[in-house]
């Protein structure tokens, strides 16, 4: 009872023993209870999980669930655009009020309540409503085509409109606890059928889920939080650090945010797998991308595909001419930036990514011509490696604005990057950044492993699958070694704030 009461208000962090116990309890109850009660049980667990962060915020979640569910039912049957817009406006209004009020109307009214995960579940729920509307619209069109001039539009809509999921199932889709805090932002067509017919217990799901979670914990606790020590120190006082180390911190931040968010996503995906559900991938080796456009196809996939499916395409995508396409890209990325945080640095970060992509399209003919003239074989690995490096540097530069508290701090960081004092890498200055030699060695080894793993991902090789083909003793040795590595070498314990996933603030 004390444990439960201590969680209320402080939430259940993915990085706590409480979370593992909670997940285990949810899995046990979910598999042991009768099939027809499983959805309700998981929903109860999910709402409990959410209420643990702030019970009041559960009302916001229920509001979004209710409005989008019933609007979805309605627009699927009747395909009324006004109802769709009303629902979108209401939910974006709540999001705006909770998250952006202070940014646009500072000093007018101090709004302090920010429900955790609101940016994520709002997009997920709105995606569902738009899908319903599109289904309704498609059904209406199809009904019109098939029934000819005699059939009324309204009747056609009614016929096509299947009722969709049950409310409990839909509520679970919006509230499913592994993804409620920071995604992945799922699609109804992937999750709802799984919730409707949940599978039975399987050892494979349990093992695979735990392995995916282990990978997530490794990324977060061994790599991301270790890098954070260095990055935080440099960003707090960049002028006291040699320029080379500021550059190093900027590059390391790129890795930190990747490991942090990919780690979170892996824990969420693994948790869902333990419960018997398959959630979409969120990262597929993004830093091995050869262009910024490719980067966004591999980074935070659930968000970038959401923006593609529900904003970029709605704006006309690339069907309305080149100029409009570039404008749409800029709009989508600016909105994406704003979605990440209520600050102009985030807006600029998103806009910068839009500019990168537009510039990439504009330069393409020049690059093609140059490559042809200089006889550059663009299929070679070395050329791709160079592209990957340039992309990584561009993305890393943009992250400066994402990470810095303000524009002036971002500019300060850029200024402090001047001066290539390469010796600062070997004269002991590195140690002054908060990691001793052994920790730097561990970090370097971890980054090499991450690089190799990402190469495997891009080549379609799953280390997890390969591992499962090995003999039991080797597998167990590696499993136990991984757990020990995370627990012993992970950054946690006194002075560590377990609730601070970078993306949890969005």
């Amino acid at each position, binding site marked *: 009872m004390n444990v439960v009461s201590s969680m209320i208000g402080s939430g259940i962090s993915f990085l706590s023993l409480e979370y593992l116990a909670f997940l285990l309890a949810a899995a046990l109850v979910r598999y042991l209870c009768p099939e027809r009660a499983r959805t309700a049980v998981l929903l109860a667990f999910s709402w409990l999980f959410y209420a643990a962060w702030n019970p009041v915020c559960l009302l916001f979640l229920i509001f979004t669930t209710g409005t989008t569910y019933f609007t979805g039912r309605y627009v699927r049957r009747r395909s009324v655009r006004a109802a769709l817009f009303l629902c979108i406006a209401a939910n974006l209004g709540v999001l705006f009020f909770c998250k952006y009020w202070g940014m646009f109307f500072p000093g007018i009214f101090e709004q302090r309540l920010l429900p955790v995960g609101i940016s994520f579940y709002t997009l997920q729920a709105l995606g569902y409503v738009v899908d319903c509307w599109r289904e309704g619209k498609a059904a209406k069109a199809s009904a019109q085509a098939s029934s000819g001039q005699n059939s009324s539009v309204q009747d056609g809509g009614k016929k096509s409109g299947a009722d969709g999921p049950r409310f409990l199932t839909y509520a679970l889709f919006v509230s499913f606890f592994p993804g409620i805090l920071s995604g992945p932002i799922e699609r109804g067509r992937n999750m709802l059928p799984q919730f409707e017919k949940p599978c039975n217990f399987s050892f494979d799901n349990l093992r695979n889920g735990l392995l995916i979670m282990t990978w997530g914990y490794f990324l977060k606790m061994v790599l991301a939080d270790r890098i954070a020590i260095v990055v935080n120190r440099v960003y707090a006082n960049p002028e006291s650090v040699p320029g080379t180390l500021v550059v190093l911190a900027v590059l390391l931040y790129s890795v930190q945010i990747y490991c942090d968010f990919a780690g979170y996503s892996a824990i969420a995906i693994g948790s869902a797998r333990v419960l018997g559900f398959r959630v979409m991938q969120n990262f597929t080796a993004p830093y091995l991308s050869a262009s910024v456009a490719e980067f966004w196809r591999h980074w935070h996939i659930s968000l970038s595909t959401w923006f593609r499916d529900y904003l970029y395409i709605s704006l006309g995508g690339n069907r309305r001419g080149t100029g409009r396409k570039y404008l749409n890209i800029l709009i989508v990325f600016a909105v994406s930036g704003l979605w990440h945080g209520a600050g102009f640095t985030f807006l600029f970060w998103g806009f910068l990514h839009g500019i990168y992509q537009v510039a990439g399209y504009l330069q393409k003919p020049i690059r093609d011509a140059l490559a042809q003239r200089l006889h550059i074989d663009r299929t070679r690995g070395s050329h791709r490696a160079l592209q990957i490096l340039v992309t990584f540097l561009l993305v890393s530069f943009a992250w400066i604005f994402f990470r810095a508290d303000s524009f002036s701090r971002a500019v300060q960081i850029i200024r402090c990057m001047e001066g290539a004092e390469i010796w600062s890498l070997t004269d002991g200055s590195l140690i002054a950044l908060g990691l001793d030699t052994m920790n730097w060695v561990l970090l370097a080894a971890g980054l090499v492993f991450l690089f190799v793993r990402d190469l495997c991902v891009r080549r379609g090789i799953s280390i997890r699958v390969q591992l499962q083909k090995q003999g039991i003793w080797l597998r167990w040795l590696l499993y*136990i070694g991984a757990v*020990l590595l995370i627990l012993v070498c992970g950054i946690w314990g006194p002075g560590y704030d377990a609730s601070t996933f970078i993306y949890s603030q969005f």
Partner: protein
Amino acid sequence: MRIRKTGQKIQKVLLAVLFLLLLAGCLYLADRLVERKDSREKNGDYFAVAPKADVLLLGSSHMINGINPAVLYENFGIASYNLGGHGNVLPVTYWEFVNALDYGTPKYVVIDTYLLEKDYQYLDVMTDAESDADRSAAIDQLHEVMDAFPYGKNKRAALSDLISNPSLRREFTFDFIRYHSRWSSLEREDYEGVFGEPCGESILGAQLRYEVDPGVSLYPRVDPSEKFEEATVGKTYLRRILDLCREKDIFPILVQVPFAENEDLQRIANSAQDIADEYGIPFLNMNYVENIINPETDQQSQTHLNALGAAKASAWLGAVLSSEVGVPDRRGEAGYELWEAAVRKYHQQIVANILNPEDLYAELMTLNFNDVSTIIFINNDSVAFYDESLRKLIKNLSGTDGIDVMAGTKLGYCLIHDPVTDTNEETKGTVPLENIKTSFGTVNFTTLENYDLLSVGENTDENQLDYVNNGKIDVQILVYDPASGEKIGHLYFRDGGLVRG
């Protein structure tokens, strides 16, 4: 088919259980590896000796550094254990006592009254006067006290009473939470401590300091009637300790371990007398007893005794416990082997520190234990002659003011100190030391025109002083094993003794 499937399921469950057991075993070993060993090293022996210990020594670092159970046993046969803890305020001492009683009930408890004025209970809260660093240090010190005690009802009660933050308490329940980050600084002792008990410097809980603070400030004594009158949490918990003693039929003795205390600390210490009177028990304020220690040579810092000071304070306390309180002499009785081993360890530690001292002050301090025979030589132009603290330490050894006389002569100085033959010979001007009989041979010392000649044994031409490699060294000390007479060390000091040669 169904039977086969069921068999496969059972096999998977068994494998999962086996895997979890293996994982748990590995986690246990990892926990043992990364844990800080000092609590087990300091208090680990207590669990073995608790039923035999007649006296428990409780209190702060003053107790740990100041009262040596090996001296109490060697000289008086007192079987004691030092459960003092660094920074222990009286609430911590109380709870350590409560936990200790789970393993044995001593007949006597000696309680150090230092930190009586502290007026807080929660170590993670303290008062506005303390800094975050103080709070952090207090938690760290509590780990040293508590880690060795297995988790149980009393430990849980102690943590609830001493720490307000529940998440902070958790790291005492599972100290792996705190210590896992030690992985990058593990030492040999950490690996050795996985399967066995860690072997450290503690002697039945006491931790001796082999340094000398030559800059200790001295203060006038205030009248014992001048007291710190305010009620504090410290005083409340001292009473709780005394109540517990009464309940368990344990005879308590309050002490103030001697050191050069300022006037405020003296007044605070004096206030313990009121509590002693309240309970009708003795309060031994050693600061009011003349000549127990010499603060100029017997302190490691302004407030802590060094090993020599501890030996003196322990000898005085042992005499009182033995003759006035009536603590039994256990020497020669069966079952006290651990105390005998502690005495051996103590003397080995002294010799080890003689052969590897922090500086010349520490060397001269440890030579006072008479565990070795020695020849001390100071070069004629050494700055050591002008260091009053060094001269005092040498006078402790020689028993004369000879070094003061030699300081103005610009001549080399030699002291032959052999406890076996009770020899203490030193140079007086240019008069040579001739045919001095010692346990390690006949010693001759002569001041010649450009150098000094020190010979030991038959060959009087062989100079024991190293002028070839260490001609510019200020001080040379030759160390001899009193049992075999063999030379076991030759130490060199530069810059008046502050730097090892």
